[in-house]
Structures are given as structure tokens and as C-alpha cells.
């Protein structure tokens, strides 16, 4: 296999999740009028971050075996 595809997926989702969370917390709440007042950046950022970390953990586990 050489490259474990879970590494790039894990890394990019961790980066995206972090960006969305920080942007969601730092930005003016008026931005979220379009999403009906839900701070969707924050919540979806958390979801993407968790997914990215799980993928990274799976890749790490299989690289240690």
C-alpha cells in the first residue's frame, strides 16, 4: 500500500474542523443569519474535527502494528 489514505483524510479533516471552529467562535454572529441563527460553523467544525482525529487515530494504530 505504501501510503495509508487515512493519513491525508485525517489531517485535512482535522485542519478543516479547526478552521471552522475558530472561525465560528471568532466571527460576528450576524454571519449566521443565513443558517437561521445556528452557529453551524462551530458545530460542523466539531464534527469534522472528531472525524479527522478518528481517521488519524486509526492510521496511527495500524502503522504501529
Amino acid at each position, binding site marked *: 500500500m505504501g501510503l495509508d*489514505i487515512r493519513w491525508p483524510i485525517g489531517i485535512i479533516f482535522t485542519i478543516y474542523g479547526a*478552521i471552522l471552529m475558530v472561525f465560528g467562535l471568532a466571527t460576528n454572529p450576524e454571519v*449566521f443569519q443565513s443558517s437561521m441563527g445556528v452557529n453551524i460553523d462551530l458545530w460542523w467544525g466539531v464534527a469534522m474535527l472528531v472525524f479527522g482525529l478518528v481517521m488519524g487515530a486509526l492510521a496511527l494504530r495500524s502503522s504501529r502494528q
Partner: protein
Amino acid sequence: MHPQFVDYAIIAIYFIFVLGIGFALRGRMKTSEDFFLSGRSIPGWITGLAFMSANLGALEVMGHAANAAKYGMFVNHFYWLAAMPAMCFVGVFMMPFYYGSKVRSVPEYLRLRYDEKTRTLNALSFAFMTLLVSGIDLYAMAILFQRLLHWPFFASVLVSAIVVMIYIYLGGLTSSIYNEVLQFFLIVFGFLPLAILGLKAVGGFAGLEARLPNAGYAHTWAIIWHANQNPMGINWFGTIFGLGFVLSFGYWCTDFLVIQRGLAAKDMPSAQRTPLIAAIPKMFFPLMVILPGLVAIALDPTTKELLGGRYDNALPAMLGRFYPSGLLGIGLTALLASFMSGMAGNVTAFNTVWTFDIYQTHVNPGQADKHYLNMGRFATIFAVAVGIGTAFIVLKFNNLMDYLQLLFAFFNAPLFGTFLLGMFWKRTSAHSGFWGLLCGILAAATHYTLYHYRVISYPSDMAANFYQAIVAFTTCFVVTIVVTLFTEPRKEEELVGLVYSLTPKPRNENLPWYQRPGILAVGILAVCTVLNIIFW
């Protein structure tokens, strides 16, 4: 829609990763098998998600959202009636012949089962069709970027095409498959919030149903029994036989674009599981493409405010309506990922068929393996360059779905007749495949000409496409049988591994139950039946 710096940054990061995967795999492309078939080494879950993703091009995503806005839940049939049974069938019954016979492409199977001329006819028609289709994704991508980011059309086409070209050139099918897996997850995470926010905006399923233009929009089956009850004007026969049988089985079971992902799997059970693993997320994709289309039409029944008078705008307009900056970058990346995975699927399928079935067979046989590896890289550049050209042809058409279904009805529909008889009737003779296929394509051409000049008419273009597929398939099927009855059968010992009744069944007893293809297929069809009943 006003993208900000954060959205551009998210898109830029995506490009870096896509190219990075290509560079990481660059050193591992040593033989032509590595480049075209990933050295047959990839686990089933990866080939499965790539199988799903290669099909998730621009038309699949934007086209079905547009169709949902136009026709309502009827579009569910493309998933639950058409794709599911065909994907289960190819995994359980057909993959053993594709993978087991060690062929490198779908046309190569036709050479083993029939003869050289059948293979050449299929290779040429497939290569031609693939080049015409690859422009669609480039076109859609360029239009989107022109509209959202205000890039010029030609610059958008060029940037997207060059990125796809680089990662396939470097890493071949492996690079394409790995990127497709990444793209699959980006598409899911990019579009899922649309379903959540959209449902919230219209007040859940009950609110959605109340706001749809008419009651037929909220039904999958209740409206198909009479042609005049549904907006596409197609009755149950055209829907079930044309779409559910001919077009869907023709696409999922014979189109090398998807089959190639199965051939890259590391062993027979993984190859068989490839379409089945793809079917599981595919089953729930109406949530991500059909639901936003329905919400769009519920919010804007006149199509004037949100959609700007065009159904094709449904998905991008919904992204713009609901996504704040930040998530908008993810949504745009998901669209970009879908176009790139669709385009890459076409390019990898083309370069393989061109190199093995046309170049190595007819133009320049007997060269060293390295020569064909380089030819594959050259064919990648060629395919992308032609794709850029076809993007401008597509620019002249005003309805993308017609363009695509027309090509499928020409080439895939008759081919399924050739495969069905070849794999499951050992009497089918060597000559019959070519004549059946040729007559099927000619029948499709005749039907198209008659329809085009209004000698025959249908209530909608989609209905015409369904019936064209039925005509092409039936002609191929009947001609193949008739020619077979007048020609010599092939010796049975030559057909071992190619025909169902002469091939030992793959043994699965040592696999855990959740890895057995038959059990997976039954489970998928059972869940699919439940979905059909819920949204009846």
C-alpha cells in the same frame, strides 16, 4: 453568495492535498499494472468508496438536485430502483468473471468471451463516449467558479483540468482512487448540513410536504402507474424496464469507469464487495442531492427568486442561501471534489482502454512494459486536453442530462445485452457479440434520428431516452440470439472462467458473515425496500 478569505483558504488547502497525494504515489508507479490497475492491491473499503465516488460527478450531484426540483421524488428511482439492484448484481454475479479472468478492462473481457472485433467496437465506442462525458464535469466546474468566484470560464476550465491531469499523471489509478476516497468524505461532509438546515427551514418532512407544488412531488411510486400522473410522463413499464433494468444494469454492470475500481481490489472477495460497499452510502444519497432539490422548490415554487429560472441552479443556490462563510468553503470544496472525482474516473478509464485495447492491440504491439506505462501517461494528457475541448461543446448544449443519457442510451444499453448473453448462456457464439452490439448501436441511432425529426414523439426527453435504451437493448439481445443460432458455438473448455454455468463459484465459507457478498446484497436490498415503502 460572498465567499471570504476563509473560504478561499479552505479551497486552496484542498488543492494542496489532492496534488500531495499524487506526489506521494509518484515513486510507486513502476509497471503498467501499477499505473492502470493499482497493482491489484487495494482493500475493498477503499475501492468501494472510489467506485461510489467515480460516479459522483457533476451530473450526479447537481443534475439530480435539479431533477428533484423539477420532477420531485420520482428521482428516487435513479437510486432505489435503478442503482441498488444493479450494484448488487454486478458484485455477486458479474465481478467473479471480471476479476477472476484477470482481464485489464471491460473490452478485454469481450475479446476472451467473443472475439477481437467485438472488443475493438466496444473499446472505440467507450473511448469516444468517455471523452465526450469528461467535458461535462469540467464545464460544470468552470460555470460554478465563474459564477461564484468570478473567474473567467477558460481560466476555470484550465486550472481544474490541470490539477486532475497532474495527480493522475503522477500516481495513475491509485492516485485517482485515493483522491476519490478523500473526495467522497468531503462530499458527504460538504452536503449533509444542507439537508439538516434545509429541513429546519421548511419545518421538517411534514412542512416540506405541505409546501411542495403538488402532492405527486412527495411520492416515489404512487405516481408512476399512469404516464399522465407523473411529471416525466413515463409509465411504469418505461420506468421499471427502461430505467430500472436496461439503463441501470447497462451502466453499473458494464461501464469500465466503475468496474475498473473493482479490478484494482486486492483479492476476489474485495472485488466482489467493491460495488456492495459503494451501494451502502449510495442508498442514502437522495438525502444529500434530492432533498435539497425539494427544499429549493418548496422555498421558491415559481423558480424565479432563488433559482433564477433554472433548475440546474438548485444545489449551488441552496449552498448560497444556507451556508455562512466557513461552511461555504467546505460546500464549494465538496462540489469541486465531486467534479474532480467524476472527471478523474473518466480519464483513468480512458487511458486504460486506449493503451491496452486500442494502442497495444492495433497500433504498436509487443513493446516493453515501460513503453505502455509512458503511453498511459501520454493518454492522460491527451484525455484532459480533449476534455477541455468537449467542455466547449457542452457549453453549446443547454441541457446536460439529455446529453449524458443520450450517450448512455447509445452505448451502454446495447452492451448490457451482449454481457447478459455472454456471461449466462454458454451457447452464445463468437460472432454474435459483434453483430448484436453493432445492430444495438444502430437501432439507438435510428431511434434517435426518428425522435429528433419528430417522426415519433414522447412526453419528455427523459422518456425518449428510456425508450431508446429499451430499443437498443432489445435489438442487441434478439440479434445476438439469432446470429448465435446460425453460427458455431465455442468449445466449452475455452469458456471456463468466462461463463456462469462453466465456472466454479467463488467460495466464501471461510469469510465472516458480514463480508460475504450474497448476505451483504440481501441486506442492502432489504433496507432499500424499506426506503421505497417509507417514501412510497
